């Protein structure tokens, strides 16, 4: 058991705990960011430095920051999460059940080979070549999806003068 993995795991879980337990949503986003850094560390120990870097760049640098913007824009007047013990308990039970189920499967599953493999020196090159050859479709699709997401996000957020009034009437 190597220490780097242990540290990364602890950071990940701690960050995640922070993300789910904090009543202040801003703090929760920070917790998410910490957890994501931990995940990047795990990726690193799993012999995938490139993915780890991407994780940090996109998740921590992009998504988490966007979330913070969203929190800033939305929850100024939003009340803090009220304590709702029953709900949390129910959620904990559900998640706990899931954990038990997953752990059971994990415990009894027999994996083909438990040995660590370290045969991926040229992995980055392989990723690049594969991405633009064999998995080109996934790559291109992803670009289209991202483009659509950008356009869609703009369209959704754009202010339309007539629509909100109508929608509110309908909602009422």
């Amino acid at each position, binding site marked *: 058991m190597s220490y780097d*993995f242990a540290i990364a*795991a602890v950071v*990940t879980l701690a960050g*995640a705990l922070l*993300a*789910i337990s904090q009543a202040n*949503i801003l703090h*929760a*986003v920070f917790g*998410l960011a910490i*957890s*994501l850094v931990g*995940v990047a560390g*795990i990726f690193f120990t*799993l*012999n*995938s430095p490139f*993915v780890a870097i*991407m*994780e940090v760049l*996109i*998740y921590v640098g*992009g*998504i988490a920051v*966007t*979330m913070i*913007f*969203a929190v800033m824009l*939305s*929850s100024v007047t*939003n009340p803090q*999460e009220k304590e*709702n013990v029953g*709900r949390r308990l*129910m*959620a*904990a039970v*559900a998640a706990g059940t*899931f*954990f038990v189920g997953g*752990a059971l499967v*994990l415990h009894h599953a027999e994996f083909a*080979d*438990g040995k*660590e493999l370290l*045969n*991926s020196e040229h*992995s980055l090159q*392989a*990723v690049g*070549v594969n*991405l633009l050859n064999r998995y080109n479709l996934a790559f291109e699709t992803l670009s289209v999806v*991202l483009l*659509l*997401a950008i356009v*869609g996000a703009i369209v959704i*957020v754009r202010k339309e003068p007539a629509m909100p009034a109508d929608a*509110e009437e309908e*909602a*009422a």
Partner: protein
Amino acid sequence: MTLEGTLLLALMLFCFGIYAVLARRNLIGILIGVELMLNAANINFLAFSHFIPTDPAVAKIIVLVVIGLAAAEAAIALAIILKLYRQRSSIDVDAMTLLEGTGAEEASDE
């Protein structure tokens, strides 16, 4: 570092995500939970590719695609959240019960 350990970590992360999705009333909180679950899945992909002999590039590509999709998803989700917030001044999921039919009026009155 073993396969089982990594998978257990991923499972725990996933359960945290589930908990967040279920317990949070804030939409952004739920989104955080979803991100946690996605990452748990990513860990699993890489763990399997690391410990079981396969083409290592595939898992990495999948993870990269998932990360890209997560970015797209987050962008859209946040846009929706902002729109909702503008319309209803709230991003509380418990207020969003239009589908319930008659209950919608009560909910929006609250």
